[in-house]
């Protein structure tokens, strides 16, 4: 009837699993990074609107537990929000619940995405794109009113 593999899917907690993404700027081995990710209380939050405020993020993510800190992602040049942030909880369990119940839901009418982060370090609050924002906003072709309009390379044409 049902194999053990199929049944194991029923027991999985996949929303909490690590994604494929690994920070290329991380100082340390892959093993170190994964160890930190597995016990981290910090989440990366992406696909935010540039206009989403810390207050909105605090309200939404506060639903899964007490927040220790929200760090807004900033454009390296303009020092204004550029569509991502870090949310650090006091307890790992609260961060896991955010991964289960808040990841993939809407904030400011946009589907946001959460992922584990190895821990905030000074400098990581800045976008890594050439123009100062996030890399994804350098190359995208679509028009996104909440993220500065067209991608940077399109704008420069």
């Amino acid at each position, binding site marked *: 009837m049902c194999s053990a593999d199929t049944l194991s899917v029923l027991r999985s907690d996949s929303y909490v699993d690590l994604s494929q993404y690994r920070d290329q700027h991380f100082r340390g081995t892959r093993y170190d990074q994964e160890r930190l990710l597995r016990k981290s209380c910090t989440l990366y939050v992406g696909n935010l609107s540039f206009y989403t405020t810390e*207050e909105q993020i605090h309200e939404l993510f506060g639903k899964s537990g007490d927040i220790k800190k929200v760090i807004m992602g900033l454009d390296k040049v303009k020092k204004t929000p550029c569509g991502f942030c870090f949310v650090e909880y006091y307890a790992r369990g609260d961060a896991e619940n955010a991964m289960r119940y808040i990841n993939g839901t809407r904030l400011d009418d946009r589907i946001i995405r959460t992922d584990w982060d190895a821990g905030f370090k000074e400098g990581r609050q800045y976008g890594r794109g050439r123009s100062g924002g996030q890399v994804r906003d350098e190359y995208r072709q679509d028009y996104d009113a909440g993220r500065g309009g067209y991608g940077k390379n399109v704008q420069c044409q």
Partner: protein
Amino acid sequence: MSRRRHSDDSDEKLTVYTTLVGLLNARNYNFGGEFVEAMIRQLKECLKVNMYNQAVHLVRFLSDLVNCHVIAAPSMVAMFENFVSVTQEEDVPQVRCDWYIFAFLSSLPWVGKELYEKKDAEMDRLLSQTESYLNSRYLDCLWSQIQKLKKDRWQERHILRPYLAFDSILCEALQHNLPPFTPPPHTEDSVYPMPRVIFRMFDYTDDPEGPVMPGSHSVERFVIEENLHCIIKSHWKERKTWSDCLTQDLEKPKPKFVREVLEKCMRLSYHQRIIDLVPASFSVLSPANPVCMYKYADESNRSLPGYTVALCLTIAIKNKASNDEIFGILKDVPNPNQEDDDDEGFSFNPLKIEVFVQTLLHLAAKSFSHSFSALAKFHEVFKTLAESDEGKLHVLRVVYEVWKNHPQMIAVLVDKMIRTQIVDCAAVANWIFSSELAHDFTRFYIWEILHSTIRKMNKHVLKIHKELEDTKARLARQHKRRDSDDDDDDDDRSTDREDGPLEEQIERLQEKVESAQSEQKNLFLVIFQRFIMLLTEHLVRCETGGIDVFTPWYKSCIERLQQIFLQHHQIIQQYMVTLENLLFTAELDHHILAVFQQFCALQA
């Protein structure tokens, strides 16, 4: 089959799975029998290990198996008879009886109809036994619903019933009898769930056809708020049904509900969005624009005491002044409470607190992060100004004055100030019950803050307790290691030296635990004391004025008191003797005493 996993699913999917089991049973009678036996085993296990939420779900699952022709109705009735008999047990906690009644009643929306069709006399008997048990219980709500359901001849319109589509197959199936099920006996280790506080905003007459609202489990509440956001957005056109909100007293549940939801919606978006969304006629229910209110804002305020110091401070802080420089500037602020300034210079001076806190919060108003940085940078000044209890209370008052339009900001600032020990939990409790906050007393944010404060206190006690246990364990391991060492040169003095630091640490932690527990107890005593004062004042005023006690404010207040008991019952249980002897004494008004007595009954 992974039965365990299926049973973990929410009740919404329950009937899908029972239909599946029904169809399988129709094909293979033995499968059905084994499945039922496995469910009963799991139910017994859950009850043994106090997993009551799971157990309720299993009972509902079994009930619905009657609808799918897997379980014979008479045997289900027999099991429910055993459940209801628990109310006849002697010397058991009331919560044990409550739970079994709850498990019985809450299955009836699924299977009431079928059981009544097959065994109406027995069901009548069960329901009347239940009725006589339920006189003034927290299960009132569910009982009223079941009574109504019975009156409607068990017609239930919300639950999805896929098995109806397969009736031709299922009615041919052979049914199983449930093995006789006796509720496992009460033991000393048995812990039964407390009644859940369910915030009921609507009267049953408002929506008789509607589904039962889910309780305040955190994830479900989150889902509800998201849903409500959508509902209100898409249903604003139906103004007629909501417009009666506008003519009612704003403290009544319906308009209050709308105001609080709009405030929550604003927190998830921004003020202008809500203003644009809400029709002009409803603007009285719209939230305030969450702006900072700085009293020394412009020149027109220059006659206010402390105005010039505020200006000085502003310039100094913008120029990255240190804590010492700030102290220097504040030294010149006169104390309106005293004729001469104290020699030490740092006794409670409300004007100093006002000028400093107003100015700093105004400068840091831009975002939460700015405000948190400000609290961190000038922590020393805060600690000194707020050293006394009056100081702490005044800091909180000024925070409120500055940010009364932005409850979310107040909440996060209070949280930070507790965590950085600028104020303590008791100060927050006293502030919440102070006359300055009386106007906001029934607003949700106040209770968010109070319950968050209690939770922080509880977590703190647990944390220190864990530290103590961990250190004791370390000492034990150290002893064990030494004992297993075969060292002839063991010297009594050296072992003492080894143990010394750990034993000292344990002693210090022990003191810390006791002090934390004492602070925790004091917090609850303050809260109860203030509730009693507040409610008594209202009751006396109503009595002497000959007006009805049951105003919306009173109803809200007395239920908030109940909520404290129910939400933190485990901790409060430790204080029953103190509460009985000190606060909830026989001289108290019977309205207030009743709340305490009901709570005691749950502990019995």
